[in-house]
């Protein structure tokens, strides 16, 4: 056992170990079967390649996964993130659209490249709409004492209806160029969305590691009675978690709608709630709450999109990809089940022991 340096052992027991193994396995498969995957070129001063694509596409999911991690850590779940993405994206794009209501979009308007509201107001409205949804969820769960799955189900069912109400049932298209920047722009050769994710991640990290909120979230998730008796306001902790999740979804909605230059309330952010939960679970945070790791969830989101882009490079059609994703989930389930974990851990331990014996 002495051969196991503390660092290696600590790494193996950390929550990052399994997600990183999975990600590197995926990348190894890519390296063997599609060497072009790692090629990064420079086009018009921007870095360009599959890896950049992965990061750029995964950005909204990473954001949602950060929010979802906090919610799941409080032993809850937020099913409404996809709907919140739609609501906030609808809010933003509706404010931009110079042709309000039933007015026809003419070439003049297209050429005008104009906006109805200043851009900063659009962004604020977008974020406010999502955050408000988060507050609503938080109130239902913390004050209304409704099971998280049911409470967020309400917004999940009604949310896309609300988004359509906002856009008056139309598919919004944005011709205002500055708005495109969030999803398609580059800073120093790297996509803007990467910086946004980094900012939100640092915000979340500061929130949970530099204040005591992170510990509160963990104790509420592990044992809410104990949290209550130790004087922690369980209600406010949950409210903060859900509000932050709503905020993250709103930022994701901003990036997504900017990326596709518009908003289709029925399809934007579709199945994101499921992908986000999947990312968190891949990251090793238990659905029953408690210990969590933001970085592991972000890696989980990266795994999902690395897998998706890999399948695209192999030429799998987008629709059939769903089945491929199911196989990914199955592998994750098998790897993460207690049974196989125990088996692998035992194998590693035994190897360490025999190794130690021969020395």
């Amino acid at each position: 056992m002495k051969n196991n340096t503390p660092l290696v052992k600590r790494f193996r027991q950390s929550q990052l170990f399994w997600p990183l193994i999975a990600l590197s396995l995926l990348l190894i498969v890519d390296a063997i079967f599609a060497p072009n995957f790692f090629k990064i070129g420079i086009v018009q001063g921007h870095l360009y390649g599959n890896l950049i694509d992965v990061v750029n596409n995964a950005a909204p999911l990473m954001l949602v996964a950060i929010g979802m991690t906090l919610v799941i850590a409080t032993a809850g779940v937020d099913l409404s993130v996809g709907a919140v993405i739609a609501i906030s994206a609808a809010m933003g794009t509706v404010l931009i659209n110079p042709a309000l209501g039933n007015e026809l979009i003419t070439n003049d308007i297209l050429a005008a490249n104009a906006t109805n509201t200043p851009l900063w107001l659009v962004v604020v409205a977008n974020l406010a709409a999502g955050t408000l949804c988060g507050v609503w969820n938080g109130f239902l769960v913390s004050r209304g004492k409704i099971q998280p799955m049911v409470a967020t189900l309400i917004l999940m069912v009604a949310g896309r209806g609300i988004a359509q109400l906002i856009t008056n049932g139309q598919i919004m298209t944005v011709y205002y160029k500055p708005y495109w920047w969030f999803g398609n722009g580059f800073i120093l050769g790297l996509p803007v969305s990467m910086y946004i994710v980094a900012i939100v991640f640092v915000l979340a990290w500061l929130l949970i590691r530099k204040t005591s909120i992170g510990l509160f979230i963990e104790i509420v998730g592990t044992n809410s009675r104990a949290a209550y008796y130790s004087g922690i306001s369980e209600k406010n902790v949950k409210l903060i978690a859900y509000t932050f999740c709503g905020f993250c979804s709103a930022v994701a909605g901003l990036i997504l709608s900017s990326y596709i230059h518009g908003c289709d309330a029925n399809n934007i952010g579709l199945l994101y709630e499921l992908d986000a939960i999947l990312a968190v679970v891949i990251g090793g945070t238990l659905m029953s709450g408690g210990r969590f790791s933001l970085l592991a969830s972000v890696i989980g989101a990266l795994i999902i999109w690395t897998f998706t882009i890999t399948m695209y490079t192999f030429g799998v059609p987008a629709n059939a990809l769903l089945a491929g994703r199911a196989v990914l989930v199955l592998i994750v389930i098998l790897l993460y089940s207690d049974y196989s974990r125990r088996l692998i851990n035992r194998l590693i331990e035994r190897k360490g022991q025999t190794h130690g014996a021969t020395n």
Partner: protein
Amino acid sequence: MVQRIKTFISGNAPLLTTIVIFIIVYIIGGQLYPSMQKPQVFFNLFINNASLLIISIGLTTVILTKGIDLSVAGVIAMISAASAALLKAGWSAGVVIPLMLLIGIAFGFIMGCIIHYLKVEPFIVTLMGLFFARGMAYIITLSSLTITNDTYRYLALTKLHIPFFKSAYLYIPSLIGPILLLVTFYLLKYTRFGRTVYAIGNNEQSACLMGLPVARTKIIVYSYGGLCSAIGGIVFSISLLSGYGGYAPGMELDAIASVVIGGTLLSGGVGNVIGTLFGVLINGTIVSILQFNGTLSSWWTRIGVGLLTLIFIGIQSLFYMRKKHS
């Protein structure tokens, strides 16, 4: 006698509330749009929501064990695409239908085994089921396939006239839901299997310690859910006479909402399939009110169902709190 009625009411309060809400919603609809008072409109609820009712019944049994099945709508799409493809290839309906039922059972069985033996969250496993089923449907066909099989056409187009009501009719597949409802009601209420389902939902560990067959029951429940989804898929493909991977988008949400409105708790152990029937009917009534209105757009359905879910959950938690206090 009064005492007995009182215990009946307090024992079935959530169910009675659902029924009352359904009647109120329907009466409001009838007052707003007099043509909604025709009996045919009521029977249309069964015709239009046939597959929703069937999958909601399966989902209720799963939710009673504190599980969840997100794969229901995916299985509908997969079954419709698969049966359309096989019928197109010249297979007879007599072979295709049993085969589809077997596929549904096998699908549920595998998910049940993974959930029970690998101890994975039902949410995650059935999510995998949803992705897998939809993906398979798209692998089978990327576009909508028409069904021209004679048996299917017969089932789809034969009208059953209802006695005592003039010119009111149902189609044959719309009878399957109510029959399945009665079977499930019997199974849950009067058999050892059903009692075990409730016991597991209330406390799995206690059920296990009491020596109840937890593993077997859970796997049977998920297989039953798969079977119901497969039947729902067949009914769906009969009513549309086609199959496609994109069918029934988001129907799992409607089904979960119907079950919740029907008074079944997502935390398991409390609930009833009869409530689910009324949950589905409420859902259908809102849709038909919107259709009668004509000017209201389709998204109000979603908002309406969401609001009703909220109202109903509020009522449930009130009952729950009162019980706790008394």
